[in-house]
Every structure is written in C-alpha cells, then in structure tokens.
C-alpha cells in the first residue's frame, strides 16, 4: 500500500535555511545541505525547499544549491519559489530536483500550469496554495506573494475553487498551506483539509500547524491527506522523524520502514 509521507519543509532565503512565525520574522536555522542530509537519514520520505525570497523579489535567484542537494540526497525533493516559466522549471529539474512547486506565478498566469504539465508531465508539477480563513466572511481565500509581508495580498480565488481549477489545468499534487496555523503549532486545519480532500483527486499534502506527534496521526486519519509537511518541529528537534514514524506505525498509519 502507498505509504503516508512525512515531509520536512526547509524555507530557504539567500541560500540558507530560515524559519518565520506566520510567515514573518525569519530566523536563521542553518546550512541547506547538512540539514537536508540529516532529515533524509532520519527517515524523511521527501523534502520540500521553499525559496521564500524568490516570488516576492524581482531579482534572479541563484539556485545552484539545488544541485548540491541532489548530489547527497537519495529521497525525492521538490523546489518551490520563483518558478515563473518553462525555462525556470527546466533549470531546477536539470539541477536534480524531482518536482517543482508553483504558487504565486500560477495565480498570476494559470496557463503556466498547463504549459508546465505538457512539457514535464503532471507528476512533477506541484501547486502550492496559501489559504487563509477569514472569520468575518467565513471563507477560505487564496493569498499571493506570501514570502514578503509588504506584498502579501488576497486573490479573487476561494481556496476550493482554486483547488478545482489547478486540477483541471494539470497539477500533479497540491500542498495546501493554512496561513492561520503556520508556525503556531496548534495542529493542522483538518476541517479545511477534509473539505479539500473531497474535491481533490490528486495527492494532497497538509501544511501548517504541526506541533506534536498526535497532529500527524489526526490529519492522516481525519483528512486522509497523502502527506504531512512541517518545518519548525523538525528544525527545533521538538519531534524526531524516526520516532514520529514509529509512533504513526503504532497508530496503524501506513508508513515506510
């Protein structure tokens, strides 16, 4: 049976791993390659690297670190941030990434998803969605340019309409990040993820809110997501990936040994 995936996320800024709370106040965590290697050795099933400077800044971002990661890592990894064209995606994949994740540029030009899927195959096209629950309107809305607080803006899309749209256009996987929960470790938003699951026929990855091991168990069982992504609990060694996987196996979650 297909195993549920545990996915550490490394936010990258200027070639280093950083972590912010609710997307802000980024603090330096360390170098990319040793941290990526440590996670792979601890049993991570996949890694995601978000170059959080890239979409917000107009400058060309140096991505040569992708190749250094590919040299040492023997599990799949995905690169997000600043991929705006077929050429950008081709370069990242040539460096050795397995998948590319598109967020703000897909909102700016949804046809980018079609073009990338046609050229590289749907299986390496991941769509990242930053979703925020507005308590006044009780709507989940998609946000853009979340890497830079000063440019972050709400889009015309509700989260569920955008999930349907990107599937139509050829997305191979969706990472649904819940901004309300990001970095606060209060648990995944299983209400939103369960709703997303019902309309999502491609792999769905939960993001935002992991604080303790039981949160992973809950999101796999209640929202039936294919993978769970987390950052700070792994960076700060609140949760050890090996112990987490052992715990989930004991809870009868299908986990790779």
């Amino acid at each position, binding site marked *: 049976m297909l195993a549920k995936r545990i996915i550490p996320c490394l936010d990258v800024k200027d070639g280093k791993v950083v972590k912010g709370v609710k997307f802000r106040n980024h603090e330096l965590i360390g170098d990319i390659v040793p941290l990526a290697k440590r996670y792979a050795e601890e049993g991570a099933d996949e890694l995601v690297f978000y170059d959080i400077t890239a979409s917000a800044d107009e400058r060309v971002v140096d991505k040569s670190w992708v190749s250094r990661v590919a040299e040492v890592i023997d599990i799949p990894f995905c690169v997000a941030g600043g991929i705006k064209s077929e050429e950008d995606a081709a370069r990242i994949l040539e460096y*050795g990434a397995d998948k590319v994740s598109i967020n703000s540029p897909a909102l700016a030009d949804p046809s980018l998803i079609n073009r990338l899927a046609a050229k590289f195959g749907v*299986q390496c096209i991941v769509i990242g969605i930053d979703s925020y629950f507005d308590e006044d309107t009780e709507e989940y809305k998609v946000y853009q340019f979340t890497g830079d607080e000063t440019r972050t803006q709400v889009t015309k899309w509700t989260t569920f309409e955008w999930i349907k749209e990107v599937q139509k256009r050829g997305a191979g996987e969706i990472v649904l990040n819940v901004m309300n929960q990001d970095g606060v470790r209060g648990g995944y938003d299983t209400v939103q993820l369960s709703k997303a699951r019902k309309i999502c026929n491609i792999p769905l990855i939960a993001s935002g809110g992991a604080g303790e091991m039981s949160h992973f168990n809950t999101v796999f069982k209640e929202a039936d997501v*294919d993978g769970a992504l987390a950052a700070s609990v792994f960076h700060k060694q609140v949760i050890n990936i090996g112990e987490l996987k052992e715990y989930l196996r004991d809870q009868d979650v299908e986990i790779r040994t």
Partner: protein
Amino acid sequence: MTQNTIKDQAKFNVVIIDTGCANLSSVRFAIERLGYSVAVSRDADVLRNADKLFLPGVGTAQEAMKNLADRELIDLVKSLTQPVLGICLGMQLLAEFSAEGNVATLGLISGSIDPMPSKGVRLPHMGWNQIEPQQDHPLFKDIPSGSYFYFVHSYALAVGGDTIATCTHGAPFTAAVNRNNFYGVQFHPERSSKAGAQLIKNFLEM
C-alpha cells in the same frame, strides 16, 4: 562474490544515455554515490563501448520518443547487447506501445503502457510503495519482498511475461521487467533511499 574495488570501478564504463530528459543528474549522482564514475552521452561509439547503460526519463512518452528520434538513438538503443536499465519513463519506452500520446515505443519488452485504473485510488501514483520481486532475481539481491520504493507515474505496464517485480495501486502492475539484456524499473531507484542504492549496485555488479 567479491566486491568491486574503486580501481575496478574506474575502468568500468557506465553510461547514461543522454535522452534530453530532465532528470539525468539525479541518476548520475546516485551512481557516483556508489563510487562509480559515469558518462552522460548520446555518441554511438560511447554507447556501444559501455559496460552498463542507463535509460532515464521523465516527461511524456511522446516527447521522449521524439527526443530519441531527433538524436538518432532509436536503432542504436535497440542494437545494444550490454545490460540496459530503463528507469520510470525509460522503462516504459522499452515496451511496444504507449497510450500516453499513442506512440510506438522501442518494443524490447512485451506489452503496452496504459493509464492506471483510477477506481478507488488517486493518480498520479506518487510516493513510496511496496514491491514483490521475483525470488532470486539478481536485480533484487538483498532486497526483501515488501521493500518500499519511490514511484511517480500515471501510466503503467500490466503484469506480463517479462515482469520480475510487481506493485499494487488499485490494481497490480509491473514494478520491474527484464528480457534479454534489457531491464526496467517503474520506480525511481535514484530516489529510493537504501533499497534504491542496493538495486543500482546490483545492476552494476551483475
């Protein structure tokens, strides 16, 4: 069985067939991590003189066959007599026909590539899944039944006469094939942690 020394490995010609597909470097790095040097080439002489060859691939069957045709690699690959390992789309290209773009493929193993049945499961089949290898096949030496490998695909080869390992996602399908000197794996050994490294090592030591 004796271990290859680094010196032996240096004389050993490992070549990745340069199909123009995008994941060449991850396959190259996986081979290099085992201590082998490896060339990436589409030169006929280099390919013919190789001891072992890899046929990688990502993207669509149609685009990959077009790339092979543009590079005049179709007859050359068919004429190879050394062990060739196709990976993912590279494995699918070894079959007779692919429904992904309705394109004739190399015809080096039996069967055709069809969309995976989506009933009750999500596609693409993406993530780690367990395989059941044929007992005693050298490609799966020291790889126990039930080992997890990393898969990313929506099309698959049905279980058939050349199948040497199976996997199940909704329905059983071919995880690995072998006919004559042509081998193929639907999963990505270069991204399958220790089990994947063992499989590449087995292929190189066969």
